[in-house]
């Protein structure tokens, strides 16, 4: 009785995703036959895991006092700060790296200050820089997850602790929450750090700070050694898949849309006010300074950007919108089919892209298609496709709960009056799901807009996207132009996100 064509479409889509992801893995494994690991590759494997572990530990350890301070203090700008904590998820990595370079780089503010008082300079390159950038991205994520955890503790429990006059409410109330929340947050962050390409590309490098993804890029781009690239990509795939499998045993906490409005439930202890002030101020400066630096440095150069940058911006825009359209369509079809059939297989297919990184997928597709086409010809389509795939798990997770509610509430009525096919999509599905669809499209578009991965592998000079232009400009030490282009990139990303999100909200009944 159910709309059979939907199930068939969803099945074909799942098959396509599985072919793309698993087929890529197979192609990588089969093409890596002749290659063997060099000592440098072993050190890349070690460095990839080490930096991810250290980044995770720092992000989580710093997030605990930050979230706790934010939880129990009220001050002007608190809401804005918490909102800002959600921004790094959408912030193009290259923009953040540029901001960090402006503050901590060789001629950055910090080193200028150190030099002026006669202290030795610090270097942002290598392990320290990679970890710094990862903490910049993941501290806010971890903080929001933990804030959520704190807000989910029933107020009664704190009141009970007070009436019992427990010496340490932390041990009995907050520690159990952390024990439940932190492992999931840590795994999510570990995964992000494992697959972050741009940070390693810009701040890593050399024999001691090369990640697997960077090694893949170098093998393809500079050594033209497809076999080794395939082998490295296969290893990266295996590590990622293992981490995702592990993560699936924990429920990953929701980081987006965390509620902020619960009333104060912790009585702020007076003696630690100074500590909390320091924590919040440090966190805010740590997050805001690099962004402010990009803004200040980039704004004056914005009117003088070369035409090629604007062209790249336009290219990035249409690629982002196309990618978002693909991703949203796929997520909508799969979420509806899963809401209807509760098929575990379809669900698995939607989540499958999590087990691969964009760069690994891109490498695999390149190796599969290499005998038939020139890499320039597929650079843009492959980038669009890979970005759509990488957003799919997020969008699917976003849509599924709403699709389930929609199905439970109105499927029978729709069937009873024969509302089906395009009419059903137009009069029932799209209006009811407008809000998550808008949010999802915004997320996918912003992520695709800021992505710098696959495109760096293939693009020739006429095909650069805006993030690639930023990276090339900063690589050529044209820092003001780079900052201006970065400013343009971050503005376009957030405008795209806001437009789609707002569109969804306004279309929602």
């Amino acid at each position, binding site marked *: *009785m159910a709309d059979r064509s939907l199930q068939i479409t969803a099945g074909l889509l799942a098959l396509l995703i599985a072919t793309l992801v698993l087929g890529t893995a197979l192609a990588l494994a089969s093409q890596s036959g002749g290659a063997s690991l060099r000592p440098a590759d072993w050190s890349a494997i070690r460095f990839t895991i080490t930096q991810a572990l250290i980044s995770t530990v720092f992000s989580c350890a710093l997030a605990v006092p930050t979230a706790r301070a934010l939880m129990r203090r009220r001050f002007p700008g608190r809401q804005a700060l918490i909102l800002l904590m959600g921004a790094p998820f959408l912030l193009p990595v290259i923009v953040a790296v540029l901001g960090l370079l402006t503050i901590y780089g060789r001629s950055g503010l910090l080193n200028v200050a150190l030099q002026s008082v006669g202290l030795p300079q610090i270097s942002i390159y290598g392990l320290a820089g990679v970890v710094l950038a990862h903490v910049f991205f993941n501290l806010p994520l971890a903080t929001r997850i933990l804030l959520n955890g704190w807000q989910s503790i029933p107020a009664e429990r704190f009141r009970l602790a007070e009436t019992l006059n427990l010496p340490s409410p932390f041990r009995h109330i907050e520690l159990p929450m952390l024990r439940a929340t932190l492992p999931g947050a840590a795994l999510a962050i570990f995964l992000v750090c494992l697959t972050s390409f741009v940070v390693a590309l810009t701040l890593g490098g050399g024999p001691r700070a090369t990640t697997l993804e960077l090694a893949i890029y170098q093998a393809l781009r500079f050594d033209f050694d497809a076999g080794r690239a395939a082998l490295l990509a296969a290893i990266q795939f295996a590590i990622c898949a293992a981490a995702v499998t592990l993560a699936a045993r924990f429920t990953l906490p929701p980081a987006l849309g965390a509620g902020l409005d619960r009333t104060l439930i912790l009585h702020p202890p007076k003696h630690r006010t100074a500590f909390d002030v320091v924590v919040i101020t440090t966190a805010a400066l740590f997050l805001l300074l690099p962004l402010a630096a990009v803004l200040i440095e980039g704004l004056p150069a914005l009117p003088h950007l070369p035409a090629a940058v604007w062209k790249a911006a336009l290219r990035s825009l249409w690629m982002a919108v196309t990618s978002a359209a693909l991703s949203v369509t796929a997520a909508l079809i799969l979420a509806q089919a899963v809401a209807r059939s509760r098929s575990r297989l379809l669900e698995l297919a939607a989540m499958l892209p999590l087990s691969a990184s964009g760069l690994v997928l891109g490498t695999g597709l390149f190796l599969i298609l290499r005998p038939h086409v020139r890499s320039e010809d597929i650079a843009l389509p492959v980038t669009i496709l890979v970005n759509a795939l990488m957003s799919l798990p997020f969008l699917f997770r976003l849509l599924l709960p709403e699709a389930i509610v929609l199905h439970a*509430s*109105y499927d*029978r*009525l729709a*069937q*009873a*009056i*024969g*509302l*089906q096919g*395009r*009419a*059903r999509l137009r*009069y*029932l599905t799209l*209006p*009811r799901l407008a809000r998550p669809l808008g949010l999802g499209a915004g997320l996918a578009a912003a992520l695709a807009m800021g992505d710098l991965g696959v495109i760096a592998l293939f693009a020739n000079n006429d095909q650069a996207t805006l993030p690639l232009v930023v990276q090339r400009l900063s690589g050529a030490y044209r820092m003001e132009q780079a900052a201006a282009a970065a400013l343009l990139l971050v503005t376009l990303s957030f405008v795209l996100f806001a437009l789609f999100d707002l569109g969804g909200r306004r279309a929602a*009944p």
Partner: protein
Amino acid sequence: MLHLDHLALTVDNFRLTANWSIPPGTKLALLGGSGEGKSTLLMGLAGFLPLTSGRILWQGRDLGHLPPAERPMAILFQDQNLFPHLTLAQNLGLALNPRLRLTAADHARIAQVLERLGLSGLSPRRPADLSGGQQGRAALGRVLLQARPILLLDEPFAALGPALKSDLLSLVADLAAETGTTVVLVTHDPADARRFADQVVLVQGGVAAPPVETDAIFANPPPALRAYLGP
């Protein structure tokens, strides 16, 4: 005639059977406690549950394999009878044309039905802007426009409170009498059955018993009904 021919329905481990028929124009109540299978039977009739065995016949035609929208039936659920994001006119219009390509004649029919139900002038409103009673009437308007010979009611209007519910049920009875519609009402409330139905089917222990005249069954309740009614 609506004929349930050796009908069997299965949900998980629960099995319900029925083997009886009613003439067209009957107002039938399916009466029983919660979990006895009244709604299961109704969902089977409406086409939301596949039949385990047996047939459903209407005027000799086998309905068993038709999707819900193609059966000669309209249905009112316990709730969610209107799409909250569509206006009343659109909600009612879906009954005339699921693609909402409505002609001037369609709009006239919608206005006519709304007037009959005391909802004149409310067609641009959304359900949330209406009172509970108005929402119930609007849902009734939708099934009126569907104009099917059989109307299935799954404990409708239950959330509205006794007075409003009984008002709406008598409105259904009036409308059904005008059009000769066969009505099957699911209820756990004996008062509903007494007020509304010509015949009562007792649903208990996995069996939907053959229908009995309402007056007769309440005058001389069988043991199962006596147990259900209590002292």
